[in-house]
């Protein structure tokens, strides 16, 4: 199994940390992982993206132009990455702030109202965990228990008290993802 994934959105949405948690989750189940951020002159409010690869085999290129899955969290990223999903692949996006919705017919499209669900839960910081939950529902490649272990690994100890809230957000995402 090899999953080649891009997560793309605004800086500050937790794109990079979501990728990091996924990468840790892969390690927890003895898989090979790579996490390659766009590290250009990015800033809060600017675009940010990360390529994550989880594989049973040695990973060749950490840099890709085609993906099995694209998680898209703003319009700029939709414009840039809709076309880079492999035929038969998956596009998962948050419709919030999207003016031009995806139109491709040769891929599976899912949506998750991450921003509004996070607002409902009263904490916009767990937005990325809702998205992560939706992804895990669509592509259950890493086990939830390993994601929780991954969370523990990537969060400093002083934030471990927030793990139940993150878990709740993941479930929220799992329960609310829509297949379009």
């Amino acid at each position, binding site marked *: 199994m090899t999953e080649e994934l891009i997560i793309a959105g605004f800086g500050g949405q937790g794109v990079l940390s979501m990728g990091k948690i996924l990468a840790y989750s892969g390690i927890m189940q003895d898989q090979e*992982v790579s*996490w390659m951020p766009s*590290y250009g002159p990015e800033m809060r409010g600017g675009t940010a993206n990360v390529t994550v690869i989880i594989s049973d085999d040695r990973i*060749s*290129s*950490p840099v890709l*132009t085609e993906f099995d899955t694209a998680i898209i969290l703003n319009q700029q990223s939709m414009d840039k990455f809709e076309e880079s999903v492999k035929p038969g692949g998956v596009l998962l996006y948050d419709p919030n702030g999207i003016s031009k919705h995806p139109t491709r017919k040769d891929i599976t499209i899912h949506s998750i109202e991450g921003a509004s669900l996070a607002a409902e839960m009263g904490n916009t910081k767990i937005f990325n965990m809702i998205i992560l939950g939706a992804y895990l529902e669509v592509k259950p490649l890493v086990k939830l228990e390993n994601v929780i272990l991954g969370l523990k690994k*990537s969060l400093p100890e002083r934030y471990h008290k927030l793990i139940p809230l993150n878990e709740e957000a993941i479930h929220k995402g799992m329960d609310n993802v829509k297949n379009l």
Partner: protein
Amino acid sequence: MAELKLMKGNEAFGEALIREGVDGYFGYPITPQSEVIEYLMTELTHERTGMVTLQAESEIAAINMVYGAAASGKKSATSSSSPGISLKQEGISYLAGAELPCLMLNVVRGGPGLGTIQPSQADYFQATKGGGHGDYHMYVLAPASVQEMADFVEDGFDIAYKYKTPVMLLSDGVIGQMMEKVMIKEQKPRLTDQEIHEKHGDWATIGRIGGRERNIITSLYLKSDQMEEHNQKLQAKYKKMEEDDCRWEEIQTEDADYIIVAYGSSARISQKTIQLAREKGIKLGVLRPITLFPFPKKPISELANRVKGFLAVEMSAGQLVEDVRLTVNGKVKVEHFGRNGGIIPSPVEVLEAIEKLIKE
């Protein structure tokens, strides 16, 4: 205890310096390798092992601190990115001339000049052909994974002390910035003053213990015959490196008709191209130089006797390709594919270049 971690290449390099028992790191921050000094500062190296981590006032100061520390038998290291490495060139030439062991990391960014912070491999000439003045070489290792960013710290210091020579890790923004899992080795103890005396007492300037003859660290030989003799000694060292310590990796070359020569992140990208090419029935292999100096001439000239062509893939306008051409020496065609200015070539683009090479 050895540990499995998820780390950026730059962080893995930093952790490996600590575990190697390095005495001093002297640096100055510059993207895309600022995580090295940031990591070392956060890890409180002095509390952990007694290792000094010092942010110098400039790259020039940092490389001369390395010179001073290395001269006193201390294990010392620095890191920077392209424009910063240019500033260090005088110091590097002096380190090579004075035969001082040390480790340097260049996380290459696009140039020339201030350039861009995006990845590049355009410092190949600088690293392998000099950069500083005079007839010298550094031993140059090219990591292609986060694991190698850590492992080459130990390998690099082994070579640095074996030959009393500066060693460079030539990396780039991809390897420095990406995270992969990495097995970090056990902590080695730093050498005590007594151990430094025993191991390096014959050359290091650590005080005239026991009233012995003084050790002199210098690259200045005003008499031409002495200077020539010193140069010959250095050249003999480089020849020995070539014979004994040249490293490379061959990936699916056994049945290959065409060979990509690529190092670092370009080698990773090219491995993906192998997969794409073989799906199309093209027998493609990759020869990855692990040491850029010494250059793996032997396996390349052997391959040149049985393959149809070579493609050098690099994030530069064509530097590595010159060494491939010199080695292949006209036996078969050698072409170049490169992107520059911080653009990372895609595996598909590399495949197109291979298809073009086959057609021509």
